[in-house]
């Protein structure tokens, strides 16, 4: 794996730099000596089989949990929060609605741009006073992304924004992300939808057997001549 480590151009300070990060659950190692770097203006997909530690990696990057070992460095440009972790539909209680969630964000995050959040929610024409109980997971995801992307942050994290969502809404979400990501910011998302995201992702990070491989998607296409999903299957097949 070491020979495939990507070079970081010296001029571009990564927004996120994880070095030799390990994480264990009850002494069971999940991630071992993981390196990950996120440069400005990139969209990076994290893929891996179920239980490979994708969500854990995202939570480590977002500072929601601390690593057992290793260093995680966030270097945002001046005036921006280092990271905004977008909540998943399961992480938000069903009794909340978009309005309440917005009030919660305003109180909790000094960098939250309430007007922008309102604008984004209005543009989606989603019910804002209805409890999330009554909304589909796709609608909740769009609300969560509207709020997460309304924080003035250098790096946005999203855990499976396309999971359990029908194709048309998945397209809306893909386009919504592209439309709303602030210029120069980066997005790291956990996803299984490699085929439909393959041209949107600048880089792919594959978690497999507790380690990681990070590669540019253009390299996958040009060097290996296969799709991003086929590359993932090749890298994770049991030998």
């Amino acid at each position, binding site marked *: 794996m070491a020979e495939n480590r990507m070079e970081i151009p010296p001029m571009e300070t990564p927004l996120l730099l994880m070095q030799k990060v390990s994480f264990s659950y009850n002494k069971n190692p999940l991630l071992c000596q993981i390196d990950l770097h996120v440069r400005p203006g990139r*969209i990076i997909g994290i893929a891996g089989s179920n239980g490979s530690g994708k969500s854990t990696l995202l939570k480590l990057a977002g500072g929601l949990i601390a690593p057992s070992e290793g260093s995680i460095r966030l270097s945002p440009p001046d005036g921006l929060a280092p990271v905004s972790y977008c909540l998943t539909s399961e992480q938000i209680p069903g009794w909340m609605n978009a309005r309440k969630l917005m009030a919660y964000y305003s109180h909790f995050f000094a960098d939250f741009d309430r007007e922008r959040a309102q604008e984004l929610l209005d543009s989606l024409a989603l019910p804002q006073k209805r409890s999330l109980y009554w909304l589909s997971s796709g609608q909740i995801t769009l609300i969560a992304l509207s709020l997460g992307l309304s924080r003035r942050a250098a790096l946005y994290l999203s855990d499976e924004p396309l999971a359990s969502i029908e194709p048309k809404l998945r397209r809306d979400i893909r*386009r919504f992300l*592209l439309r709303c990501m602030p210029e120069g910011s980066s997005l790291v998302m956990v996803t299984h939808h490699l085929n439909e995201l393959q*041209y*949107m992702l*600048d880089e792919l990070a594959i978690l497999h057997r507790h380690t990681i491989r990070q590669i540019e998607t253009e390299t996958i296409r*040009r060097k290996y*001549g296969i799709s991003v999903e086929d590359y993932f299957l090749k890298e994770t097949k049991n030998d």
Partner: protein
Amino acid sequence: MGFDAAAPIYIQIGDRIREEIISGKYPPGEQLKSVREYAVFYEVSPLTMHRAMQYLESQGLIVTKKGVGSFVNPQLNPTAARQMVKEQALRFISRLREMGLSAPEILKLIQECLQQDNPPRDRPENEEDMKNG
């Protein structure tokens, strides 16, 4: 939106926009869509779209004003556009030559293809431009 593995995606997108410029869809001086709008349209990363615009800029097809947007080069004249069409034709011909076709065979093949193809006569002004250019 489909792409193939033959060239980097930014070049494939750049070539599509280039064709739109040459076809006159965007006349000289006209503002193009923003990087973000194009990224949403093609569902590609903003980085890829930036590279596509830089590629078009390096060919002198567009000019980018910082903070304003990208425009079709106002100096772009029909002769230059014709030159680019000619380049495409030359590339096509060299590929047929690589397949072992001679000049008369290529000509015959193109004539055959033209007879099969019934083009909609929807762009008379462009045909005029081509003749004058």
